[in-house]
C-alpha cells in the first residue's frame, strides 16, 4: 500500500476520533454495559450484585406491570403516530399555500413545539382538571361537567395521546413544509395544464415526492412514542393504577424510585431491541417506496 494512502487513512481516522470517543462513551458503551447489567442481580452496598443469568428476564415475563405498560405503549403509539403525521402533513400543505397571515399561522402551529414538555403538561393539567379545568368549563356550557379526565383509567391514556399529538404535529409540520418548498412549482403548472385535479396532483405528485420526509418523520414519531415521558411526571405519574404508564416511565421508576438497576437494565434492553427492530423494519419496508433524489 502506498504511504500516501496510509497517511490518508490515518488522517481520516484522526478526524473521526473526537466524535467516535463521544459516541462510544455516551452511546455504545452504556448500551453494552446495560446488556451486561441485565444479567446481574440488584446491587446494594450491603448485597453486591451477582450473576443470575436470565432471571431478570424471567421476572419480567411474569411482571403484570410490565405487560400493562407495554400494552399502553402500543396504544399510545397507535394513537399518536398516524394522527400527528397526518395532521402535520395537512397543516404543512395548508400553510404552504398562499393565504393571508401565513407567517402567523405557521408560528401558531409551531408554538407547541417550542414549549418545554413539562410546561405543556402543566398547562394541560389545568385543561383536564375536573370542574375548574378549561375542558370541563367549556363542556359545562352544554350541561356536561365533572368529567374526571385524568382520574379515570378509561380516559387517561386518550387524554395523554391528544396532548402528545398537539405537541408533536407542529414539529413534524416543519419538515413537511421544507419538503413541500423544495418541490418545483413547474410540476404543479404542468399538472394543471394536463388537467390534473388537486387531489390527483397530491396523490400522484406531492405525496411520492415528500416520501423521504414521511419516512424520516415516521421514524421520529415511533422513537418519540417510546421516548417522550416527561409529561407523565406532571400529569399522572403513570396512574391511576398504571393506566397511563409507558415503558420508559416504568424504567425510570424501577431505576430511580425502586433503585433496582438490574431490572431497569433488563427493561432498557427490551426497549432498545424493540426500537432497533422497528427502525430496521421501517427502513427495509419503506425503502422500496421512497424515491430519493
Amino acid at each position, binding site marked *: 500500500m502506498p504511504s500516501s494512502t496510509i497517511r490518508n487513512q490515518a488522517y481520516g481516522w484522526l478526524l473521526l476520533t473526537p466524535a467516535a470517543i463521544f459516541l462510544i462513551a455516551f452511546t455504545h458503551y452504556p448500551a453494552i454495559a446495560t446488556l451486561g447489567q441485565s444479567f446481574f442481580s440488584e446491587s*446494594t*452496598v*450491603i448485597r453486591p450484585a451477582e450473576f443470575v443469568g436470565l432471571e431478570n428476564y424471567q421476572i419480567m415475563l411474569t411482571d403484570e*406491570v410490565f405487560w400493562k405498560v407495554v400494552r399502553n405503549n402500543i396504544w399510545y403509539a397507535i394513537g399518536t403516530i398516524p394522527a400527528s403525521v397526518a395532521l402535520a402533513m395537512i397543516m404543512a400543505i395548508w400553510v404552504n399555500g398562499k393565504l393571508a397571515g401565513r407567517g402567523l399561522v405557521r408560528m401558531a402551529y409551531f408554538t407547541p413545539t417550542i414549549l418545554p414538555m413539562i410546561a405543556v403538561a402543566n398547562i394541560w*393539567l*389545568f385543561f383536564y*382538571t*375536573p*370542574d*375548574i*379545568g378549561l375542558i370541563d368549563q367549556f363542556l*359545562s356550557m352544554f*350541561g*356536561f*361537567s*365533572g368529567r*374526571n379526565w*385524568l*382520574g*379515570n*383509567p378509561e380516559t387517561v391514556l386518550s387524554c395523554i395521546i391528544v396532548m402528545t399529538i398537539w405537541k408533536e404535529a407542529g414539529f413534524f409540520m416543519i419538515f413537511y413544509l421544507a419538503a413541500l418548498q423544495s418541490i418545483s412549482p413547474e410540476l404543479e403548472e404542468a399538472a394543471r395544464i394536463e388537467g390534473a385535479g388537486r387531489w390527483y396532483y397530491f396523490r400522484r405528485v406531492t405525496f411520492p415526492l415528500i416520501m423521504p420526509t414521511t419516512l424520516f418523520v415516521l421514524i421520529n414519531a415511533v422513537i418519540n412514542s417510546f421516548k417522550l415521558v416527561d409529561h407523565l411526571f*406532571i400529569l*399522572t*405519574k403513570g*396512574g*391511576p*393504577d*398504571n*393506566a397511563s404508564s409507558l415503558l420508559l416511565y416504568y424504567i425510570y*421508576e424501577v431505576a*430511580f*424510585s*425502586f*433503585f*433496582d438497576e438490574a431490572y431497569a437494565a433488563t427493561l432498557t434492553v427490551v426497549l432498545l431491541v424493540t426500537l432497533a427492530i422497528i427502525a430496521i423494519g421501517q427502513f427495509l419496508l419503506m425503502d422500496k417506496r421512497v424515491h430519493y433524489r
Partner: protein
Amino acid sequence: MKSVKRYMAVMASALSLLILSSNGALAATELTMYYPVAVGGPLTKVVDGLVADFEKANPDIKVNAIYAGNYNDARIKALAALKSGDPAQLSVMFSIDIYELIEQDAIVAFDDIVETDDDRAWLKSFYPALMENGVTQGKVWGIPFQRSTIVMYYNKDAFREAGLDPDSPPATWDELVSMGQKLVKKDASGNVDRWGLMIPSTGYPYWMFGALTMQNDQVLMNGDGNETYYDAPSTVEALQFWRDLGDKHGVMPANTIEWGTLRQNFLEGKTAMMWHSTGNLTIVKKNATFDFGVAMLPAKKRRGTPTGGGNFYIFKKSTPEERAASMKLIRFLTAPDRTAEWSISTGYIGTRPDAYETDKLKSYVMEFPPAAVARDQLEFATAELSTYQTGRVRKLLDDAIQATLTGAKSPEEALGSAQDQADRLLKRYR
C-alpha cells in the same frame, strides 16, 4: 469564524473568572447540602436566607445549599453525587428514605456523631411523633426539618351556606359523610357544582391512606420496616370507606383525585373540604378569598394522621470536620427561633415544643389559630409508610388504592395481592 473567536474569548474569560472566584471564596470547611421542595411557594428563598444567616454566624463554614427538585429528585441527586465521588455532606431528604439510605450504607446515625451531653439532649428535643420515621435499629438517623401532617382545610362560608356550624367541622367518619352530603351543591340539571370533600389520590395516595388506616386504629408497617399490614381487616375497611365516599355516599368525585390541582379546586370553591399537607397552609391563607378553617382529621376508632416531609441526614462519606460542621448547621437550622420562622413562612410544623414557646410563633398562633392544629394533632400522629425496598412496597399500595378507587378491583382483592407481593419483597429482611 469571527463568532467562533468571540466565543473562545468569552469562554476564556469565564474560565478565569471561575478560577478567581473559587480562590477568593476559600473557606475552612465547605458543605454541600441538597434540599427538596414539595409544596408551592417560594421556599428556596427562605432556605437561602437561613443559610446566609448561618454563614454570617460561622464565617469559617461555607454552605452550598442546592435546590434539588421534589423528594424523589433530591434522593436521586444525593445518591448520584455519592456514587460519582463528589458527595454532599448532608441533605434534606424524604423522611421515609431512611431504609434505602441505610441499605446503600450512605448515612451515619446521629448517635454516632454526637459528642457532648448537650448534643444528646438536643436529639431528644423534638416531638416524638416526628422522630418515628428517623429512628430504626435503636438509633437516630434523621432529624426532622420540613415536616408536615395531613389536616382538613374547610370552607367556612360553605358550611354557613349549608346550615352547618362553621366552628365544628366533622370529628368522626359518620359526621364526615353526613356533613359532606349537606355540603354537596348541585345545579338545576343535577351536575355537582361543589363537592363535600376531596382526598387526593395521585402523587401520594399511600400517605392519605395512612391517615384513614390510623383512624381505624391500624398501622401499615412495623417499626423494623420489614413487614406490612396491607390486608389486615381494618386496612381493608379503611379503603372500602375511601371508595364509598365517592361511590356510595356521593360526597367526593369518583375515581382518582389529582394532588397537584386539588388546592386550586379548594380555592375556587369546588370542594368544601380537602385533606392536604400542612405545608400548604401559608399559601392557602394567602390566596383564599373566603373564610376558611383548619381542623384535625376525623376519627373512626381514634384520630390519626401520618407525619410526612423531610429530615436531615448526614452522609457517611464525610470527614470528621465536615460532620462537625454539618451538625453545627443542622443545630442552627433547627434552633427554636429558626424553626419558628420556618414554620411561619411555610406552614410546616414547628418540629419541637420549645419553638411554640418563642414570641414569634406564640403571637402567630394567637392571631392565626389554624397554625396550631397540626401541632395539636401530633399527639395522634404515626410514622409515614416506610420499609425496606420502600419504593416498590409503597407503589404496591398506591396501585392497590388507585385500582380500588377506580373500581377495577375490590379492596380485599387489591390489598390482598399487594400484601402478597410486599411479603415476597420483604422476606429477605426478616
